[in-house]
């Protein structure tokens, strides 16, 4: 169900915890599974739960509690824009509006070509760099004024085109 590469990564996480506390690795394991699959289907969550010898419901509780797990398919590029107060004071809301207009979608929507999904984020912990957005849960993009947003979208388009 998951690649051997993903399982190796999960094993590395399991090793961080006492041997009788495998469940501690569930957050990391779900993140690794999401990286491979793009999102977390019920079967994926159940697989992770079985792998870590925990109840599937307990794994589902974790997957549904933390904001960065996607329980439905998302586009290839998920952009999470912070609109919380410190960012809003420096253009965060307008960065989100600019993206909505450029991509023609609202928060929690995906472009019809399946490339982009837009999410509204809570504090990303980088308020000094506002406006900030997070690309695919991994890359913090700082000082995202319109020119920078244009550059980022162009980069994503190039990646999608295989360049």
């Amino acid at each position, binding site marked *: 169900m998951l690649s051997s590469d993903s399982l190796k990564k999960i094993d590395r996480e399991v090793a961080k915890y*006492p041997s009788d506390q495998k469940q501690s690795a569930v*957050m990391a394991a779900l993140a690794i599974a999401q990286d491979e699959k793009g999102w977390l289907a019920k079967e994926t969550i159940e697989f992770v739960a079985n792998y870590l010898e925990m109840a599937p419901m307990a794994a589902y509780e974790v997957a549904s509690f933390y*904001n960065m797990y996607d329980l439905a398919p998302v586009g290839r590029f998920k952009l999470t824009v912070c609109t919380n*107060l410190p960012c*809003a*004071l420096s253009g965060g809301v307008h960065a989100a509006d600019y993206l909505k207009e450029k991509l023609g979608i609202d928060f929690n929507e995906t472009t019809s070509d399946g490339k982009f999904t837009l999410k509204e984020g809570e*504090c990303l912990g980088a308020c000094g760099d*506002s406006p900030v957005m997070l690309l695919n849960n991994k890359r913090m993009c700082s000082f995202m004024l319109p020119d920078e947003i244009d550059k980022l979208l162009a980069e994503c388009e190039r990646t999608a085109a295989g360049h």
Partner: protein
Amino acid sequence: MALISTLKPLLTTGWSGGDSGWGIKQYEARGGYVQLRRILNEKMSQDDLINEIKKSVLRGRGGAGFPTGLKWSFMPRAFPGDKYVVCNSDEGEPGTFKDRDLMRYDPHSVIEGMIIAGYAMGARRGYNYIHGEIFEIYQRFEEALEEARAAGLLGENILGSGFSFDLFAHHGYGAYICGEETGLLESIEGKKGQPRFKPPFPASFGLYGKPTTINNTETFASIPFILGVGGENYLNLGKPNNGGTKLFSVSGHVNRPGNYEVPMGTPFQTLLEMAGGVRGGRALKAVIPGGSSAPVLPANVIMDCTMDYDSISKAGSMLGSGAVIVMDETVCMVKALERLAYFYFEESCGQCTPCREGTGWLYRVVHRIEHGDGRPEDLDQLNRVTENIMGRTICALGDAAAFPVRSFIKHFQSEFEYHIEHKKCLVDPAVQRAGSGFFKVGAA
């Protein structure tokens, strides 16, 4: 106090190297791991070590300001089984971004602080819980751990001392509530991050039910520096009861947002000047001095404050994590509060009814005021809801949701009343649009 005039930065000493100064070689070149080596060579007693931290009057940098030495002394060191040291790097309080830079530019100071803490409290294992959204920082911390392990500073029998300690990074995945220490422990255990009822406190029943001490990233990072200058000297860098220097994350309407390290007791005005002053030369309206949960202070009040636990507390707010959110005259306070209220509504873990339901009420009522549907009784209603939340929940998130609402209404009541009566902002929308929250000025 002569030290202040000649003060060199402590915590930020290594930051000048930017993204290339974080490695173990650079850290050791600037005196890193010297304190750990000294402690192990001298076989320093745990009591002496904890007393040195007590002397420094280092107070917890995560927000509560609890004296670190005292916290360490609560650990049952003689308890024979597993004990844990946990670092809270789940930095998600709006306005706070200091721990991210600490781990980005100087991760080994956090590691050294945690190893020393493990030695002082007889713990053999530690975890650093890192905010989900800063994956690149998590990766860097993992690399730094590998470096420390390769250098024999982590693992079994560290530097032949007989002391063993290992440390691991745990990556969060987006839940503000995990910044609450018992929610964080639940999260490490692989569960929903819902806070635990206290007592029992983590010192007796913590991670996996074992004695555990949880400190903030900046707190741990301060430890090697305190031992370097000596506890008493560290205290004297700040002011009585507020030892040392502290990082302040300055965001919002300033010319140079960023982290600034200053001695405790530095006037707010000095900090504001360091951050380049208010953007566009506008007038200061209000400041949230300690992260979004801290009560807001109007300009005239904050301008008379010094940046330390006691001064900010006397002014009616909290120093919290040292996140200073600056707002100028173009801000509509109803709109600002609406965004904060939404945050707490979104992040309430849902465990306690007063918080789960109350944060929803707070958001909906502020939302309707902002959008022209406010009712004359709404301000009383908001205060009543906060009273029904405060002190009636397992953790402090409920209080944290209530403080902004109460303080915004208290200090800017006329703006809220105007909104309800006239169904629009007191601050002219054109003035708001000209403000820094919009690209055309913010970009300049």
